């Protein structure tokens, strides 16, 4: 009666590694996404070690070098106070990435919980949550964020709240649809027939099924959040105007767009590249993790 297969421990280990390995094998083929991953990895490294390795103090003005064009000494040139733009961008990465990632994380947590509840319990709970989301969807993202910052007052903390607020409904909706799908699966019914509580079914069985969708969407939303945070800073609603935040830098330098083009060009370029990288990475992850949602 006992069936034993001749599988050695080694083979077993190989199989277990298999999941991550096969993901990597697939992902490796997506060259643009891979490149984006490297770029984001580079940004993260800059974010961590940036303040310790930059050649110039990002806050110290140098009145002998106002509005200097890019040179070997100052690769990206200097701004109206003679501060090195490269150093400021490198230090600013910390602000931009922290703000956007923590905002999306907050939005993802709240949105996921709402989506799971809404999708699993259905009925009036679902209708209530989805209608609230519809109301939030009705406002353009940035208008909603401006409104929230206007109520709470400017500052980075409030930017985080504002940006996370407008990512809640999209996470709620996407997690809800993933929940609806996995709720109908046989193993969920099987767990219910064992006598598992709703909380257990949601947390142990349905939530793991939605993780790939969440990862993909999270990556894409970070791009949007960087743009939104930069926009709010540009409008003077986010970071302190003097801080090396990317959006704030753009805002401060727009007066010099005729005379010193590099002042707007480099912050704009870095925002553009970062947002692009997150979107391309998200695209690649979706192709590998969640091919069903592909258009």
């Amino acid at each position: 009666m006992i069936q034993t297969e001749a599988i050695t421990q080694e083979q077993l280990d190989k199989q277990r590694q298999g999941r991550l390995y096969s993901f990597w094998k697939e992902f490796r083929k997506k060259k643009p996404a891979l490149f984006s991953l490297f770029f984001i990895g580079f940004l993260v490294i800059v974010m961590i070690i940036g303040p310790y390795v930059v050649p110039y103090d990002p806050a110290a003005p140098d009145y002998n070098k106002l509005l200097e064009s890019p040179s070997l000494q100052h690769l990206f040139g200097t701004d109206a106070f003679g501060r090195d733009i490269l150093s400021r961008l490198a230090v600013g990465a910390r602000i931009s990435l922290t703000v956007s990632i923590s905002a999306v994380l907050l939005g993802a947590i709240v949105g996921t919980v709402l989506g799971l509840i809404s999708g699993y319990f259905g009925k009036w709970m679902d209708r209530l949550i989805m209608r609230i989301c519809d109301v939030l969807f009705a406002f353009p993202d940035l208008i909603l964020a401006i409104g929230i910052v206007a109520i709470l007052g400017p500052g980075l903390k409030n930017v985080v709240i504002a940006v996370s607020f407008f990512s809640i409904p999209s996470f709620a909706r996407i997690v809800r649809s993933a929940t609806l799908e996995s709720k109908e699966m046989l193993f969920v019914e099987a767990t219910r027939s064992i006598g598992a509580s709703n909380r257990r079914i949601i947390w142990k069985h349905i939530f793991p099924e939605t993780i790939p969708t969440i990862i993909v969407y999270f990556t894409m939303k970070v791009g949007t959040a960087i743009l939104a945070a930069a926009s709010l800073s540009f409008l003077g609603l986010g970071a302190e105007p003097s801080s090396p935040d990317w959006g704030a830098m753009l805002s401060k330098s727009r007066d010099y767009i005729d005379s010193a083009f590099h002042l707007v060009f480099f912050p704009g370029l870095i925002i553009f590249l970062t947002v692009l990288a997150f979107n391309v990475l998200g695209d690649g992850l979706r192709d590998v993790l969640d091919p069903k949602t592909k258009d």
Partner: protein
Amino acid sequence: MNNEILLNVKHVKKYFPLSKKWFVEKKYVKAVDDVSFFIKKGETFGLVGESGCGKSTTGRLINGLIKADTGEINFQGTNVANISEKLWKRYRKPMQMVFQDPYASLSPRMKVKDILMEPLTIHYPKMSKQEKEILVKDLLEKCGISEFHLSKYPHEFSGGQRQRIGIARSLILKPELIIADEPVSALDVSIQSQILNLMKDLQEEFGLTYLFISHDLGVVEHISDRVGVMYLGSLVEIATKKQIFADPKHPYTQALLSSIPKPDPKEKREPIMLEGEIPSASNPPVGCKFHTRCPLAMDICKQKVPELKQIEQEQQVACHLFD
């Protein structure tokens, strides 16, 4: 086998609404339409019928995965048909289910060990991990899966092995009744017999009672003590295995049995060919549901619904021929 009745289903109905629109005439799929039967402790009751006749719905109704519209389901002396989900938890332990599709019924992201320990965690929250692991190992061994496979994921097993795991999961809480919903129809024929024999062995060892749902008469003949035949949501005949296979009374049962392939091609057989398709359960025929395809239909069959009547010891038939 004693005569104690473990499960008694009385006049259970389940209609699924077809549309939820307001002001539109409500239409229903009569999935289970007035079904009554009982299962004695320690026996195997086979429930057969064509696909879509309501066998699986009956199983799910008994298990409380869906709630019955009307009727009683008496299990261990309590009517469990309409009790709350909280009270149900008490009856989930003695009543377990084995599902048709072993590929879909196990969580793909959980190890075998965790899948099997989960029922214990739910019902015995104080049990230690070591104790659970011992129970799981022991039971898996009995179900033919060696300890060595404990930390594998379901996708690393074959269909037959997965069904063994599914059966082990249903047994871990030491239940009395197991509802097996087509447990072997997704498997190869060679594996089918292994699983059926395993189920028989386990029944002997643990004193289990089975409700065995299947469309395969050969399988049902192999495992059942008593058999119920379903057609379009109603039971048309209930009898012991011997009676059903030797002397079927209802014309539908006769037709069904004549369609079993025989291993000897030279043997003369005259299958009773039923005409037409199985009618839609949303619009079943008036009177006897089988009269549209019955070769022996009479006038009364088009008007009056036949009731399930005892015609012999242990044999009940719903047909006007036996009035």
